[in-house]
């Protein structure tokens, strides 16, 4: 299948953002584990794995469209030194991802690539959910205070 104009470029841009996100979440998860916040560790690690599945799907789709996937490039990984800083960095990454995906959906509609658009739309749903989760955490910290929030993260969800 030959790709419509501009689609491969967008797919590669999203792939780069995705590969960056995998590593950012992975490091954040590990830092939470190191600090003893087991519950956060598991949540953020799962997110990293989800991004990995997206990356796999993107690479396969680029090849399916006879393009060359770029696994070389990564953006800046923003590592937060504290849990709230991690949330801030992750929220920013997700918002950037949302912007990329939204542009992708618009472009695919314009050139008539509805398969790729469908894939982007599925990804947007995940991004939205994740933004919502991060915003909830930040709001909870505001309401109950950081100490109480963190104390609740020591135990793993059973």
């Amino acid at each position, binding site marked *: 299948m030959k790709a419509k104009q501009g689609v491969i470029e967008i797919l590669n841009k999203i792939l780069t953002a995705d*590969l*960056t996100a995998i*590593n*950012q979440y*992975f*490091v954040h998860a*590990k*830092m939470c*584990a*190191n600090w003893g916040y087991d519950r956060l560790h598991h949540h953020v690690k799962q997110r990293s794995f989800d991004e*990995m599945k997206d*990356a*796999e799907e993107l*690479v*396969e789709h680029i*090849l*399916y469209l006879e393009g*060359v*996937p770029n*696994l*070389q490039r*990564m953006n*800046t*990984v923003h*590592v937060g030194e504290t849990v709230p800083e991690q949330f801030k960095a992750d929220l920013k990454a997700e918002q950037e991802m949302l912007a990329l995906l939204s542009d992708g959906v618009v472009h695919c509609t314009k050139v008539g690539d509805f398969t790729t658009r469908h894939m982007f739309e599925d990804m947007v749903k995940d991004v939205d959910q994740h933004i919502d989760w991060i915003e909830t955490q930040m709001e909870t910290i505001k309401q109950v205070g950081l100490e109480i929030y963190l104390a609740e993260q020591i135990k793993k969800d059973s």
Partner: protein
Amino acid sequence: MKAKEGVLGYLGRVLTAELTAVHQYLLHAAMCKNWGYQRLHEHFSHLADEEVRHSSGLIDHVLYLDGTPQVEHVDTIAGGSSVAELLEADLRFELEDAELLREAIAHCSKVGDFTTRHLLEHMIIDTEEHIDWFETQLRTIKQVGLALYLAEHIQDGKS
């Protein structure tokens, strides 16, 4: 825990190599799937998972040693236009990786960091197994020819 001299440097280099491997195997797995070689696809996916596990252990250990894991860079990802080219590129990569691990293990012995040495020794076992697997594939291709080899990799490994 504070790291002994030079250990974090080696761990950083090994981590970059592992992250490079994750990307490279992810790419090669997808390429094999695209070509219809399901069995090779599964093996490359398995290799990628193993390298993720290595990266995971390394990041944990860097943090444990109060270091900052660098996950922003990967070395050059080798592609290829055929299965044989992929296998050759991967063999070269694993050989370099093993060399780096040997150097790092020797350094850990010298400075007396036996925990890191132990971690790296586990990794080099996997790396040498990968080397052996790639060598076997390339030798088989030489013995039976590429076409027969590829035909055997269309089905997944389960049936």
